[in-house]
């Protein structure tokens, strides 16, 4: 049972005429995603990869009753575009840009709450319902159907781990990129709840990293409310405190957000923490066999 999106989800691409927007529109269509329209103010009437381009998101929604949107644009323009998508009634917004100002992100999230919409990211690779549809920029070939749900704060590391699963003939149900920023829409807990309720998902992999408290909060939730097995990999064990490790959110501040704190919280909650990315598939195999 697909969660968040399925093969029928109708998607708008905001910023479709840019280099990234047009390239990934092609990639998403190749994966099977229903891209129904694109938006690029001032470029309405054109077409990209066979997709009609509109001047406004409202216009695209009027023509195609779209449900979801993916955004490709420089960070300073992302707030306006995201608020437009929410105001136009879209219920899933995927924010690809990184470096969106924190206060902009908070305003987007506040409006999404009012509109009962789901925001994925910012600074995410998006999400994919394996074999059905993807709204994101992940490489198509690693995302094949199977019994494992994956949720990750980082992109390439998630591909690496999903790649290891695929090599071991273990496919995925849904893979969600939460995004590397400090204020992101979806958190581990939101996605873990969906996986718990999804009959197709038999085990879960969470890919976390240093900084913030999302892993600790997830651990508390797993201990109290999850019956399905969860395997974790955490990046940043060797990171020095006070330094931002690529992601805005990956920083140990005032002694908080350390690898040790996260690993301990997860272990206590019964989560097996893999010490290497290659250790994830054997742990998942064991978890699936024990069921």
């Amino acid at each position, binding site marked *: 049972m697909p969660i968040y999106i399925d093969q029928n989800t109708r998607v708008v691409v905001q910023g479709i005429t840019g280099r990234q927007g047009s390239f990934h529109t092609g990639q998403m269509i190749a994966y099977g995603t229903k891209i129904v329209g694109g938006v690029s103010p001032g470029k309405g009437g054109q077409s990209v990869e066979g997709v009609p381009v509109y001047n406004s998101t409202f216009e695209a929604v009027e023509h195609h009753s779209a449900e979801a949107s993916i955004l490709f644009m420089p960070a300073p323009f992302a707030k306006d575009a995201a608020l437009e998508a929410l105001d136009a009634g879209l219920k899933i917004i995927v924010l690809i840009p990184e470096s969106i*100002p924190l*206060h902009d992100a908070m305003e987007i999230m506040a409006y999404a709450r009012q509109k009962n919409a789901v925001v994925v990211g910012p600074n995410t690779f998006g999400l994919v319902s394996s074999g059905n549809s993807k709204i994101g920029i992940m490489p198509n070939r690693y995302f094949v159907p199977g019994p494992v749900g994956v949720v990750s704060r*980082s*992109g390439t590391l998630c591909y690496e781990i999903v790649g290891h699963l695929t090599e071991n003939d273990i496919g995925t149900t849904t893979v969600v990129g939460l995004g590397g920023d400090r*204020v992101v829409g979806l958190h581990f807990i939101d996605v873990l709840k969906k996986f718990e309720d999804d009959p197709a998902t038999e085990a879960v992999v969470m890919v976390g990293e240093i900084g913030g408290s999302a892993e600790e909060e997830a651990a508390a939730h797993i201990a109290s409310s999850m019956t399905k097995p969860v395997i974790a990999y955490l990046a940043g064990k*060797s990171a020095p405190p006070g330094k931002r*490790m690529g*992601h805005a959110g990956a920083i140990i501040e005032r002694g908080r957000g350390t690898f040790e704190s996260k690993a301990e919280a997860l272990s206590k909650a019964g989560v097996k923490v893999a010490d290497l990315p290659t250790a994830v598939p054997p742990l998942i195999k064991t978890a699936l066999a024990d069921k």
Partner: protein
Amino acid sequence: MKLYEYLGKELFSKYDIPVPRGKLVERADQAGQVVDELGGVVIKSQVLSGKRGKAGGIGFASDFAEAEKEAARILDLEIDGLATEKLLIEEKIEIEQELYLAITIDGSAHRPLVLASLDGGMDVEDVAEDRMISWPVDVTLGMQGYMAREICRRMGVTGNLQKELVKFLPKLYRMFREQDAELAEINPLALTPDGLVAADAKVTIDDDALYRHQELPRITEKTALELKAEELDLAYVELEGDIAVMANGAGITMATLDMVKHYGGEPANFLDFGGGADLEKTSQSLELLLGTDPKVLLINIFGGITRCDVVAEAFVRVKDNKGIDLPVSFRLVGTNESEGRTILEKVGIKTFTSMDEAVRHAVELTGTV
């Protein structure tokens, strides 16, 4: 971007938040003159360190000679490895009570979070949890009067202090929002006979929002090398070891460093050259790393929007132009993998497909040079 105390206080003044009268000086003799103007003073080192007080970076003086002596002492101090270049000299204020007040961002709740306590003036880590009141603010509502009153009620604050706080909080919140702050912390917030005064100021501005705050000065805590990397738009952190690491993506770069340590090696840096870097940027990343004189170079590429052939071409270009004499361990998979591999084989570089093998090889290589 962290602001020095004096810059934080300049911002406060713009928002009508009371701060002690003071002057910024760079020489000890100037400190003496300020005493003549203000009377008894506090002399504070302007460094971006939370250890300033404990390290002796704050002094007191009541006459010219004393001020000059204290100022000279503090200017000579190195705090947390940082030199003191400027001193903020402020009038001594009459403090009746010390509070703690901060606004930060709660990533889990997607909201600004007000933190307030009656236990001001001490290390915030030492404040008991039940003595710290926290209140998340919905940005669509902003700081309303009832919120300030409710924060006071929960703190157990009444009377004059309540009146003062209810006036004070919206000003700090407005500054926090308009200046794109990620932290605005006042410890202590001093109650004086004239009302509340921000005796200290710790303000951090969101780096990603600096483009819309051209009026603010630019302050950096980065090393020269990290600054160069910033110019190239690379995520770079200097570390202590001898294996230079280059990878694409923050998470996988962190995981590569972790794996180097796991197999007994020491990474020299964190370098994430991002997704979809072109030939130029990839070459510059490589050149930057080679400039740090590492023992071994480890490149870990999992190509999604990053193309393996572009990375391989960049490597060959740098090798041809600048020479790459050190041992290299190269992992290359993903988009245009076979093209990339062919390019590298022509210059005698073997590649790994497994990250694990590439990292182990890099660690082994450190033993051979």
